[in-house]
């Protein structure tokens, strides 16, 4: 076992339509606990819904978007939503709001919106790239 590996995590399943964000969060917490480093969490496809600032589950249900955002902030881990996936699915930041003249923005802090190049960089530079897919 190599201690201190670097990971990119890719989440393609949305909260509520899949268990992917939950499994990925438990995995990410244990990664940090084991002394590994997370280069970035990349949201792709349906996974971009995890970055919605407006998700408001009932108070007696788990709040995966909120828990994930707290984790990213606490660990200063970059969270990146793929721009193409996000725009289609209505996840936009202030810049996209201005560019497309939209009525609002809803990208949750601390996520950034960026291209697939972030994923390619993970492939090149991270020791591990682990995917968390939907259940279909």
């Amino acid at each position, binding site marked *: *076992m190599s201690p201190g590996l670097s990971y990119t995590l890719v989440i393609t399943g949305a909260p509520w339509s899949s268990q*992917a964000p939950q499994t990925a969060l438990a995995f990410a917490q244990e990664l940090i606990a*084991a002394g590994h480093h997370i280069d970035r969490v990349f949201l792709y496809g349906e996974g971009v819904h995890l970055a919605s600032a407006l998700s408001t589950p009932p108070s007696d249900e788990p709040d995966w978007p909120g828990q994930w955002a707290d984790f990213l902030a606490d660990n200063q881990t970059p969270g990146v939503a793929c721009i193409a996936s996000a725009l289609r699915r209505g996840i936009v930041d202030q810049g996209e709001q201005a560019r497309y003249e939209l009525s609002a923005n809803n990208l949750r802090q601390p996520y950034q919106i960026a291209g697939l190049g972030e994923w390619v960089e993970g492939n090149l530079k991270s*020791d591990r790239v*682990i995917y968390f897919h939907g*259940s*279909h």
Partner: protein
Amino acid sequence: MTQEQTIQATLHILNKSPSHPRFATCLAALHEGDTLALAENAVLAVTDSTAGLPRNCVALGADLEARGLAGNPNVQIISYGDLVRLTAEHSRTVSW
């Protein structure tokens, strides 16, 4: 981490229900020495009389408990921390 002639032992993380077509494809793709980690809906395989699981098969305890299967003796139970360790030990992981 260069490509070797002989493929090294691989970790397969499978999260699909045994009814999902990807489940059978995964089982058919395993090599001797590979490890199969069942997660989410895939842990139902431990109680599926039609699923032939390989010897090196582990399943996430939290997912087994959720589905009332924590007492099933057919499989080695692992934690999320164990899953992290498996991904660190294997340079090749396939998420199904």
